[in-house]
């Protein structure tokens, strides 16, 4: 494995490996300051993401307070099993991500790459479950607002069965369902891109020579996307009064 690692490194990186310890960028005074700045910078960026998703959560809160029966009816149309499974998948990916950061800290290049790869696979699994087992069936049921809102008779009957629920408000629920899970999925795809970058950089050994900040801050981003889902799952899937 190490042989493969060293053979596949191109020459500029070979030079960098000759001095394995990382040197900080010129605007900083030392490595510690650079790490702290990078970490704070990513946390501040995550604050902006909290407010970005926050707008969607705000809209959700406003309409749910007005139209609870319709939102409950819409929620019951979602598949709790897949939602819970996806939650577990994403939580596992957070675990593997945390272990990846730890591997970078302890300078274990192979472990780092394995855990980043696992994180990516779990992320792809999440998106796969979402797309194939939730969104495609939603399309078949005709509950995709704007693109394909032709609810089947089954759906209509289910909605009519809940007191106070009306189809237009259920359409509003599905607007939020798709906007919120869609925006979340978009962030997951970006996360996969970041993981790919980490994987490529890890191959050169640049991440296991004392400078693990890129892994740490990528981890922060990945965990944040997980946290958004931690809230999306109950708010979208579990409000339906499934009793």
């Amino acid at each position: 494995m190490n042989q493969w690692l060293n053979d596949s490194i191109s020459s500029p990186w070979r030079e960098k490996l000759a001095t394995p310890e990382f040197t900080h960028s010129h605007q900083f005074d030392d490595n510690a300051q650079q790490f702290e700045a990078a970490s704070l910078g990513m946390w501040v960026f995550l604050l902006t993401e909290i407010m970005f998703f926050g707008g969607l959560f705000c809209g959700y809160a406003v309409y749910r307070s007005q139209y609870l029966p319709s939102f409950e009816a819409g929620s019951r149309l979602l598949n709790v099993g897949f939602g819970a499974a996806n939650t577990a998948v994403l939580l596992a990916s957070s675990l593997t991500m945390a272990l990846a950061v730890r591997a970078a800290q302890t300078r274990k290049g192979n472990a780092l790459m394995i855990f980043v790869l696992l994180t990516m696979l779990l992320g792809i699994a999440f998106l796969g479950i979402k797309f194939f087992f939730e969104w495609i069936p939603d399309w078949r049921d005709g509950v995709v607002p704007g693109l394909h809102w032709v609810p089947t008779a089954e759906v209509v009957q289910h909605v009519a069965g809940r007191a106070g629920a009306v189809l237009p408000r259920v359409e509003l629920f599905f607007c939020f369902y798709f906007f919120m899970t869609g925006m979340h999925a978009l962030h997951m795809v970006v996360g996969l891109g970041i993981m790919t970058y980490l994987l490529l950089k890890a191959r050169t050994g640049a991440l296991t020579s004392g400078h693990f900040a890129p892994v740490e801050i990528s981890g922060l981003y990945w965990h944040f996307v997980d946290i958004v889902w931690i809230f999306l799952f109950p708010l979208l899937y579990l409000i339906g009064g499934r009793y």
Partner: protein
Amino acid sequence: MSEGTVPVRIYLTIFACLLALTALTTGVAFIDMGPLNTVAALTIAVGKMLLVILFFMHLRHSPRLTKVAVLAGFFWLVLLIGLTLADPLTRHWTPGPSPWDGTTTQPQP
């Protein structure tokens, strides 16, 4: 990070807790507790979030500045949702029908 790394078993324990809480919140959704269902779901979600933030995102070991920043972020989110909700939730306090509750017809264009 200048201090030592977090042991693997901590990560595994936290993960197990997160799975357990997921099972819990899913299970509770099938029990009728009225308005408490929402409270329970959100409480459990906040708990899961805290586990991820404190342990996976290393906030426990981060400088106090970072902790303050995160708190500020959540406070602002609460501000956004809370103060915005203050409007639609109080529109019906004034007695009398309004177009927003379906008791009068929409004004004609």
